[in-house]
């Protein structure tokens, strides 16, 4: 299984990353940025599908909350009514999950490629040799320079990079996290909104900064993609008290929202 993973996904991505660094002025930092962009562009249709699905789900929130109030004491009925609502609106509640699942292996491969290419220990360099193609563009890329801007891509990330990773992740999450009228739910989502960026900021200080560079670039692209799809900064500017409606939602979401029936 591990061999198959290496053969089909990891090795092509790893060699692509190393070849890119050769083409991009022997800069491994630029190669990480370029490959992250390439992968995100390839996965764009899936990302758009996931975002649209999420937006459509969020547009249903007022109606779902109405249902939750109405059937607070009858969970079974609530489930039935919610499914009916989704069905009438033409939304699959799991629709935002499967594009995410499909993307996972690619992100893992990209992550592994960066870690392997950085070869921070002699064992890793030796192991790297077993994954390389005998392409000239690959062999000529060595040694990969771990210096990029102020960063040592093979060393632990610093405070500035940690702030960049944390901040971009917070912005990306904030854009899509709908405020809730339920104080408990709001408290949970507010905590999550802080926890994830804080965790990744901490990871930045613990892992090679090449990986943190990938996170930062990926976050920035994610923000750009969301802005492009929704046409706005989403929930970034809305206060928790505001109604959980999409700020300038996508055409698909708006269309689905209009198409959804009123709850009697």
């Amino acid at each position: 299984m591990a061999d198959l993973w290496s053969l089909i996904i990891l090795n092509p991505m790893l060699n692509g990353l190393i070849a890119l660094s050769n083409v991009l002025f022997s800069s491994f930092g630029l190669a990480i940025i370029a490959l992250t962009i390439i992968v995100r562009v390839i996965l764009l249709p899936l990302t758009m599908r996931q975002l649209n699905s999420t937006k459509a789900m969020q547009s249903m929130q007022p109606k779902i909350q109405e249902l939750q109030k109405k059937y607070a004491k009858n969970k079974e009925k609530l489930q039935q009514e919610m499914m009916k609502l989704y069905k009438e609106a033409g939304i699959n509640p799991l629709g935002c999950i499967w594009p995410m699942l499909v993307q996972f292996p690619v992100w893992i491969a990209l992550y592994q490629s960066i870690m392997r290419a950085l070869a921070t220990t002699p064992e890793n360099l030796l192991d790297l040799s077993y994954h390389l193609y005998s392409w000239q563009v690959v062999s000529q890329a060595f040694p990969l320079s771990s210096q990029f801007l102020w960063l040592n891509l093979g060393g632990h990330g610093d405070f500035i990079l940690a702030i960049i990773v944390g901040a971009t992740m917070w912005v990306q999450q904030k854009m899509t996290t709908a405020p809730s009228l339920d104080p408990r739910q709001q408290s949970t989502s507010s905590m999550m909104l802080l926890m994830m960026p804080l965790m990744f900021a901490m990871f930045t200080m613990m892992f090679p900064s090449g990986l943190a560079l990938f996170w930062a670039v990926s976050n920035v692209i994610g923000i750009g993609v969301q802005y492009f799809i929704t046409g706005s900064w989403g929930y970034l500017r809305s206060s928790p008290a505001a109604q959980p409606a999409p700020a300038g939602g996508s055409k698909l979401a708006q269309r689905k929202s209009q198409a959804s029936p009123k709850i009697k």
Partner: protein
Amino acid sequence: MPGGTQPAQGWSGTVAEDGVLYVGSMDGRVTAVNSSTRNLEWSYTIASPSGGASCGQTSIPAAIYSTPAVDGDLVYIGTYNGEVLALSTSARSQELPFPQIGSGEWLYPRTKFEAIGGIVGSLTIDENAIYVASSNGRVYSLDKEFGDLNWESDVLSEKLWTSPVVEGNVVYVSTFDGHIYTLSTETGKKLPWTFESDVGFVSSPVLYTNTIFVGSFDCYLYAVKVGGDKPLWKFPGGRWFWAAPVIRDGIVYAGCLDGKVYAIEADSGDELWEFDTGSPIVSSPVLMDDLLVVASESGDVYVFDTSAKPEDKQLIPVKAISIDALIRGSLCAHEGMVYIRTQDNCLYALDIEKGGISWELPLTIKQES
């Protein structure tokens, strides 16, 4: 570990001196074993401080890649946490606190402000000094007797994971970014001749009759005449020539990560014979008279009679010995035996004449509870 990467564990080789084997273990110890009795003469643990979120400071065993070097009563070793130690065999036998300055022991760097990068290559010793290449890209010369810094070179590369070679008054260093530098043993300053290649050099250099032999990232073994600006020849392998070759009587024996061992004419670069072990060759081969001993990473050790005539450029090994462990450390040939420290932290003694394992000794010491 993230991304399936591996932590630094080390692959120290073994050295034999006066019937005692010295080896760096996987748990950060330098161990002396009597080669006849297999008795543990002494063992010293090198630990490196480890910060972390826990209360107080803990220490973890240092990874050791370099093979110990012995000179008189002292055993020299370099570690991946950037330390060079001179251990006195008499002081270590008595388990005295390190360093026993009266016994000639020392530690470099003296303070954390003088810290150098991790040491992966082996130390090179001449009459007066020890030369060590560091992961910070510099070469250091230390006084052999007191461990004082003689000089440190300019930064030659982003990192140096190879062993320097010293001949006469010149230190030869190959770098990952494709240079072979020559430095003065007196001052550490660069000498006029530097060889520059389009591709980086992955193996440590070997100097033979004024020619440097070194493996590169483009899967070639290069032969470079000292003073020349172009390679004398380059020989293609299927993968990197990771291990430094051994050379005798005008023939270069080079193990390659493609699993093959190649015999190449040193003058012309013509292939004489090859043999496919089926597994990458990470350790440098060793020569015992006419016998060439090659170990593959998967644990198979092959013995070749170099005086035998190859057939159709193929030489069949006269003996094969199988060890059930990974082999990455350098081999040590001594009095008809070959000693190998494997990646399962065992020391193996192979009887080359009989073609089998003579004994094996686990190097891991169980902590008493």
